[in-house]
């Protein structure tokens, strides 16, 4: 068992990384009061943009990631215009973004189905990677996994310790008050939505350029929706989001290993586990209404039209 543990934990971090990026992005958007159900669509658009960019630059990872982030942010823009400037229903607009993203990525992706990339080699951090068990798990990963650690640190720090974080939270808690003090509520929400889009784009880029690394239609397979659920599970706290993401990453990897070890359960049942677990996790958190009310950004999902 113990000799299996290291590859399982190493894989867990990789499988969790898209959830970390997409979840952190959605968390920031929701902190300002905007729930974007288009994460799945933005991830898909990010995935195909990154894959296309990486293929045409001989597998350049940086180009892929930047293309993914830009495409994700660009994809979030129509959602922002609809919900922030035109006061449209956030749930419906997010859903529209997911349907659009599925269609657009499949449309662009039809030309890229036969390509493949070589993936990305892990970078061992000297000394640290030699620590038993923890070393190879935490310090012998690809650069994007390290980048996810940094992103988590930055998001957690900005939200909790900085003036910007305070403003973001204020806009989510009481947009009217923030507006009255003179903060540009709509502009701040645009910023948060674009950030969420860029993060979802990077999450998709990681899938298509590093993790798989192929383009397959609808390759996110619900990860965007799981990321949205994780934000609720995390009660809008970045550290808990990381925990949730690694839990789900672990489940994905365990399921793959179980299939490899010939566990006598149909593979479809094992594949269904992350989705069922998402429901279980949602139920566990949501049934505690007080806990949810206490942490929920007060204006979440409600449109704000200045002077309206």
């Amino acid at each position, binding site marked *: 068992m113990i000799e299996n543990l290291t590859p399982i934990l190493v894989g867990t971090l990789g499988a969790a990384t898209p959830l970390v990026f997409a979840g952190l992005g959605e968390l920031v958007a929701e902190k300002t009061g905007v729930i974007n159900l288009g994460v799945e669509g933005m991830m898909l658009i990010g995935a195909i943009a990154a894959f296309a960019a990486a293929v045409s630059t001989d597998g350049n990872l940086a180009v892929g990631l930047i293309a993914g982030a830009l495409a994700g942010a660009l994809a979030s823009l129509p959602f922002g215009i609809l919900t922030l400037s035109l006061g449209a229903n956030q749930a419906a*607009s997010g*859903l529209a973004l997911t349907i659009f993203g599925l269609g657009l990525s499949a449309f662009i992706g039809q030309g890229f189905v036969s390509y493949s990339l070589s993936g990305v080699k892990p970078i061992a951090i000297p000394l640290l990677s030699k620590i038993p068990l923890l070393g190879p798990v935490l310090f012998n990963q690809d650069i994007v996994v390290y980048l996810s650690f940094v992103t988590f640190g930055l998001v957690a720090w900005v939200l909790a310790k900085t003036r910007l974080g305070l403003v973001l939270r204020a806009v989510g808690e009481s947009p009217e008050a923030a507006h009255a003090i003179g903060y540009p509520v709509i502009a701040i929400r645009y910023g948060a939505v674009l950030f969420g889009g860029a993060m979802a784009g990077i999450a998709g880029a990681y899938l298509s350029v590093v993790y798989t690394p192929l383009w397959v239609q609808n390759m996110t397979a619900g990860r965007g929706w799981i990321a949205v659920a994780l934000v609720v599970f995390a009660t809008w706290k970045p550290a808990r989001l990381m925990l949730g993401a690694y839990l789900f990453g672990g489940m994905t990897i365990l399921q793959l290993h179980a299939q490899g070890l010939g566990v006598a359960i149909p593979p479809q049942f094992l594949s269904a586990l992350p989705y069922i677990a998402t429901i279980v996790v949602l139920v566990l958190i949501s049934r505690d209404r007080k806990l949810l009310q206490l942490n929920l950004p007060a204006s979440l999902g409600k449109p704000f*039209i200045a002077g309206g």
Partner: protein
Amino acid sequence: MPLLEPRANPSRLMQWTAPLIAIVLTLLVGALLFYSLHVSPLKAFYVFFIEPLETSNGWSELALKASPLILIAEGLALGFRARIYNIGAEGQLLIGAICASGVAIYSNGAEAWWVLPAMVVAGAIGGGLWGAIPAWLKTHFNAEETLTTLMLTYVATLLLSWLVSVPWRDPGGSNFPQSIMFNDNALFTLLFEGLRVNTSVFITIAAVLIFWVFVSRSFTAFQIAVGGQAPAAAHYAGFSSRKTVWLSLVISGLAAGIAGAGEVAGPVGQLTLSLSPGYGYAAIIVAWVGRLHPLGIVLSGILMAMIYIGGDAGQVSLQLPSAITGLFQGMLLFFLLGADAFVNYRLKRRKPRSLHKKVTA
């Protein structure tokens, strides 16, 4: 600088003009898209929207595709009125198809008349139960139905995949993940010789009438709508929000389940992985474009069926990618939501200066 200001009353004119604006904008962007793919937009629109309707087969296909879309959207619209967002109709459709197929497979060989009716009932029960799970999770545990209905769709897809690969796989079917072909008594009767459209369209027609009467005449439907538009008022009037959740999700699941039964007992004729081209998702758009109105949904369902058929035709005769259908669907919903803003808001007119000073002073 805010661009919009609320209207005193929602504009009824905009309510019904918005879908037309959305269709025109989708066509305009579509024309640009065709142009950029080096296809003459006029020719493309001809192939997409006119050519399929020049043959009786085209009309048959239109009815065949519009029927499940309308049926599912009627159910979804009921919930959407109450702001219960069931986005897992695709999963409810698949479970309906699975239950109906179960009846067909286990009764295989029995030359009984009851097989087809039993399939429809099984499909309805299956879809209804699959909708009941998120309703239970919402009423008892406060879990968001958007996420649970969607997660259950992935579970339904995997269940289908297991069934057609292991227990229900056609033993004589060269290892393809699909069931046996169903007997004639497990299939809807064709309406016209040589065309695929079948008697299941009458179920949809009946459903439209039932929903129309239900929405315009029944007190329950009124309670549901009030619950969505003014939750506080509904609560004050003593309308149960739990009842609304249960009704919305079970009825929409039921309708989707029947649609699933209609596919396996209709054009598909067996249980396969690819029995639905995303009808459950497209029906969400159909419901909104049809203004959540039972008759509006008929029109938008026909439009959506045309987009599906056009996509197929464009693939065959213009070599356009098949994913163009999804792209059109997404654009249509985007533009509709944008145009919808003008139901409740209007462009802000410049205020006179004196008034502005008073506010700031």
